[in-house]
């Protein structure tokens, strides 16, 4: 199996775009985004960039779970919603700064991931996927009837800072998330992860500590989804159970990662740009956005199963950042 893969690698001469050139390109992209966001007078560019950074953070995390470790979660909204509510409770109920709300939200997200791992790691594949969804739905039902958080009436975040501050924090969060995933996947743990995704039993028999590797990824994903969710609801101000724990979060993340390319390092980034652009255009056609998104997702699965970036990489024989981590070989 490995021999065959090496052969095909040699035949096609896959160029790995990484190291210094990619670092420079990355810095230039971040700098351009920062300048775009900070010099924006009307605030509209800033608004779109905030959305992009936050969705990109969450999508990269979903990709880490589904594309690299084989844990397809349909319930990342659990962490997003819990963090959104932490933000609202800390700022509105206890009158603290949004910084406290953000950190508490992240911490609760990470702890929630730890606790849920006890339940979820007994399951694999579609059981795992559905269980994550059931947990999110249970949280939604609970928050809907919990008086402390004003039941289904929702809560409001107090003391929202200037949008520029939210933009800077979102951009930093997104960059940190991508850099962290890059180093994680290029570490020994990362190799173990992909081995685990492709064949959990085989990986386990050659000494990959499956439980620990999965746990690290799941907690990181929980933490970052919570941080992104907290920032989203700080920006959004109002938080309701139906949208905070809604399946529409997962719809967006799945869409972004599929369109970009599951199991590719830069796929979620490409996917986010396409998704946010589509989302902005489709906002003019209320009611149709999910229909069109769903159709595009199905067409992509049918005709470009590796996503936009995955297909380009295979056709043009290059890989961005990480090497030999395709989901289907």
């Amino acid at each position, binding site marked *: 199996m490995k021999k065959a893969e090496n052969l095909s690698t040699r035949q096609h001469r896959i160029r790995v775009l990484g190291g210094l050139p990619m670092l420079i390109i990355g810095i230039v992209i971040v700098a351009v985004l920062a300048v775009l966001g900070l010099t924006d007078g009307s605030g509209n560019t800033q608004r779109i960039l905030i959305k992009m950074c936050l969705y990109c953070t969450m999508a990269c995390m979903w990709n880490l779970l589904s594309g690299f470790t084989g844990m397809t979660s349909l319930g990342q909204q659990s962490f997003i919603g819990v963090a959104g509510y932490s933000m609202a409770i800390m700022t509105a109920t206890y009158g603290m700064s949004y910084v406290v709300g953000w950190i508490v939200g992240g911490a609760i997200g990470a702890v929630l991931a730890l606790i849920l791992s006890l*339940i979820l790691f007994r399951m694999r*594949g579609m059981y795992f996927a*559905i269980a994550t969804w*059931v947990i999110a739905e*249970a949280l939604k039902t609970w928050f809907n*009837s919990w008086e402390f958080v004003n039941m289904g009436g929702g809560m409001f975040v107090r003391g929202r800072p200037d949008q520029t501050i939210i933009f800077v924090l979102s951009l930093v969060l997104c960059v940190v998330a991508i850099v962290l995933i890059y180093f994680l996947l290029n570490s020994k743990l990362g190799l173990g992860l992909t081995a685990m995704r492709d064949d959990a039993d085989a990986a386990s028999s050659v000494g990959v500590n499956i439980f620990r590797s999965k746990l690290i990824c799941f907690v990181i994903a929980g933490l970052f989804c919570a941080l992104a969710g907290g920032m989203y609801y700080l920006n959004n101000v109002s938080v309701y159970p139906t949208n905070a724990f809604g399946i529409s979060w997962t719809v967006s993340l799945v869409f972004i990662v599929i369109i970009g390319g599951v199991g590719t390092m830069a796929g979620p980034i490409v996917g986010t740009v396409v998704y946010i652009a589509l989302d902005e255009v489709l906002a003019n056609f209320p009611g149709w956005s*999910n229909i069109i998104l*769903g159709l595009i997702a*199905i067409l992509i*699965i049918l005709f470009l199963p590796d996503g936009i970036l995955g297909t380009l990489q295979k056709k043009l024989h290059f890989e961005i950042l990480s090497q030999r981590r395709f989901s289907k070989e």
Partner: protein
Amino acid sequence: MIQTIINGIMLGGIFAILGVGMTIIFGIVKLTNLAHGEFVIIGAYASTLLANALGVDPILTLIITIPLMFVIGVVLQSVLINRVMLQGSEPALLVTFGLSIILQDAMLLLFSADAKKANVPYNSSTIPLPGGLYIPVLDLILLVISLVTILVLTLFLRRTYMGRAIRATSDDIVAASLMGVSIKKSYAIAMGIAMATAAVAGLCVGMRWTFYSSSGSSYLLRAFGVVVIGGMGSIPGALVGGLVFGLAQAFGGANYGLLASYIVLIIMLIVRPQGLFSK
């Protein structure tokens, strides 16, 4: 207490028929159909609107909705899902997820966000029992419809050639295809049957509760719960799972019924993920 148990058992039939469609797809096609909830809601709209348009009892609309949904299921499986299934189970799961969000928003556009219900004259009539207990007539009728559907389905799978072919496909694809069974045709028929049961489930949902265009996901999770409790692909298991869910719903009441069902499901996933009746 006893009344709550009676109510729970009555509701169990509806949850069983919800789960049967899901368990067939799980067991035979080996697919997690995330659009099953939307299929049920389509059935609910079809029955409610037809009954209103024709001025007949909603139950009679099954004569139209069952064959209609069966055909839709066969076409859907042949045209779309059979193709993605070649790529593996994950892409197929995501395609049904895509279908689910498309259908949900399509129904919102077509039928608006208003609550709907199929009303009948015997909505709140009851049959009195000794000791102050009673049986709701509507629930009894729905229970009978569900049980008859499940019985017919079991007979079809056991006694007919097509049913045997479908079961053979579910047991061993290679052996079945060597014996001349068309796998794709079996899958298509199985999806058609699942859609037909969704038509019956939709009728029950539409007559028993108010529903919205967005109700699909909560029924999907219940259907999934029934499957998990009963075991994948097991029709008797779906009956037991339905009963468990009906009782959880009845004891939880209007406020905590859903939460109670989810908690039962999560506990079940932890303790015995393969289900009670798995092979």
